[in-house]
């Protein structure tokens, strides 16, 4: 490694691996290192032995759970919007050829103590027990407005400038009650808190359209897809892209100390007494703890179960959103469940997660409303992790640090961070203008 590189990437989390791949494809000379002996960093998927080591301090999971390597337990559970930014990146980079996906069975929302399917279209709205009959008609009108809305065609705007009109004002025009607003904002537009109500409505309308388009794409019961064998496959696939384009990979590299010159600019990375010279460093927050600050923390529970989440139509993969207002919280809570149907557990086993932006230091108590929906569990692990964001000025030190993964249930914010970092690193904007309407899924 005593060579000179354009970029040294530290950490093999999804964000770092996407960037490594994009930069290698651009022809830059990339060295990619990780202190762990596995790919994925914070966004890896663990087998049972690794899971027990991390949370139980033992490497002896009970035998009745089955073979360790049949498990791929995501450390950052998220689903992929079928029409979203990550799919565009996957297609743009042709990384799709390394991965197999399956649609996620269901998308549900918690409302007044019960779990309901999320109605996403005008037709579904008419059938949903979430609303009374008059409310349904009002909601249907609003859904049709959103479906027909086209930013470039003023006649679909019905006289409203959505860059100025707030979401609250737009919704008021349709006379929707708070209950309806709650599931539209949180379960369809996937906002995490209620700030969107006072922000311009365009963002919410776009998010609702993304949900509906994603739902239509694969005709599953949800707008999401998820890779077979778990999310840990994603960083590996992008790492392979990087390697195919000349990137050098070194796992299990202790220390990875970033070196700076007299002006405070990055000049290399040292590990095991060897220094790789470089012009730029890309890394996750853990490699440059002095250049990040804590912005929050995520509380989560990881459960191994022998049944699907109750009241979700026996969905083998599902998301349930518990809007903050329903729980008297400031941020939403999420249930995420995957199973052997996505090859993340042996036959008959389900992996469920309950997660939220932590508001207390007691995840056991804080997560209880979500845990109560799961029914009996075989095993449960609690965890709280801090989230960080960079505070450095990359133009001064040439360090490009990713933001920790947030509690959202999908990858839209992840990809936005990656694309911004790519632009800062290269001065270019990544053209993700793939023809998504033409992109389709082929049977294997």
């Amino acid at each position, binding site marked *: 490694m005593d060579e000179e590189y354009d970029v040294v990437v530290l950490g093999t989390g999804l964000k770092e691996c996407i960037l490594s791949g994009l930069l290698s494809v651009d022809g830059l000379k990339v060295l990619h290192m990780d202190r762990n002996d596995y790919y994925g960093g914070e966004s890896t998927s663990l087998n049972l032995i690794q899971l027990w080591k991390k949370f139980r301090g033992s490497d002896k999971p009970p035998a009745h759970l089955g073979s360790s390597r049949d498990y791929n337990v995501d450390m950052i559970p998220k689903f992929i919007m079928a029409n979203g930014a990550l799919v565009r990146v996957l297609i743009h980079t042709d990384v799709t050829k390394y*991965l197999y996906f399956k649609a996620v069975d269901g998308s549900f929302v918690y409302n007044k103590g019960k779990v309901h399917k999320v109605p996403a279209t005008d037709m579904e709205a008419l059938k949903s027990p979430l609303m009374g009959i008059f409310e349904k008609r009002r909601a249907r009108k609003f859904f049709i407005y959103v479906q027909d809305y086209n930013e470039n065609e003023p006649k679909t705007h019905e006289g409203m400038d959505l860059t100025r009109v707030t979401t609250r004002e737009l919704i008021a025009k349709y006379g929707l009650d708070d209950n309806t607003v709650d599931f539209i904002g949180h379960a369809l537009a996937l906002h995490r808190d209620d700030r969107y109500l006072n922000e311009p409505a365009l963002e919410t309308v776009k998010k609702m359209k993304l949900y509906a388009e994603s739902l239509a794409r694969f005709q599953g019961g949800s707008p999401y897809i998820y890779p077979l064998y778990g999310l840990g496959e994603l960083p590996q696939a992008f790492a392979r892209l990087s*390697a195919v384009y000349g990137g050098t990979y070194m*796992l299990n590299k202790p220390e990875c100390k970033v070196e700076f010159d007299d002006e405070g600019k990055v000049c290399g990375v040292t590990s095991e007494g060897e220094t790789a010279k470089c012009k730029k460093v890309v890394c996750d927050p853990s490699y440059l703890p002095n250049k990040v600050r804590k912005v929050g923390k995520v509380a989560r529970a990881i459960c191994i179960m022998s049944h699907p989440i109750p009241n979700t139509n026996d969905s083998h993969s599902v998301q349930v959103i518990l809007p903050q207002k329903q729980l008297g919280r400031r941020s939403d809570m999420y249930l995420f469940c995957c199973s052997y149907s996505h090859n993340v557990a042996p036959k008959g086993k389900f992996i469920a997660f309950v997660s939220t932006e932590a508001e207390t230091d007691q995840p056991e108590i804080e997560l209880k409303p979500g845990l109560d929906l799961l029914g009996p569990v075989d095993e449960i692990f609690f965890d709280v992790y801090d989230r960080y964001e960079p505070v450095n000025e990359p133009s001064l030190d040439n360090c490009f640090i990713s933001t920790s993964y947030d509690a959202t249930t999908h990858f839209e914010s992840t990809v936005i961070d990656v694309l911004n970092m790519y632009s800062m690193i290269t001065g270019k904007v990544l053209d993700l203008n793939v023809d998504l309407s*033409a*992109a389709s899924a*082929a*049977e294997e």
Partner: protein
Amino acid sequence: MATIGHNNLNAKLVLLGDMGAGKSSLVLRFVKGQFLEFQESTIGAAFFSQTLAVNDATVKFEIWDTAGQERYHSLAPMYYRGAAAAIIVYDITSANAQPCGSLVTSNPNMVMALAGNKADLEEKRKVTAEEARAYAEENGLFFMETSAKTAANVNDVFHEIAKRLPRAQPNQNPSGMVLVDRPAEGARAASCCS
């Protein structure tokens, strides 16, 4: 994974072995009939496919090259995932050839070959065929010496693998879908979870 349809078999084949053993050269010879004396470390193409006809069926190999990730022992588990066959390549002129690679596999039906490459360099030989054959037998591999340069035995290795692939392998994995970028066929070509 090896999947079947109308006497057609799709099989993922992975290459293992030390850097410089000639993995890419072997594939290039097989797929394109080419040999480059000074083959650069593989850039830009680490995914080949080639179809072979054997007896009653055709086998489409999807061949994965290591893309150099073996160099610092950083091959991702994804690389082996679902592989129906592996060729472990070593250089017969290298005294410390480590033909083992990683034999860890979750697929007991995986067909594995041991290829002693650079067999044209007889005068520089450091590993005897007997040693390699004994190793292969102990580990359940079939063994051939190959030369990507002269093409000796190259097609034979792939043919032998194709013949040995289990025809009626139960589909271990529920099949997923591959996202592709292509013109929509008809109304909606999207289908999944079959």
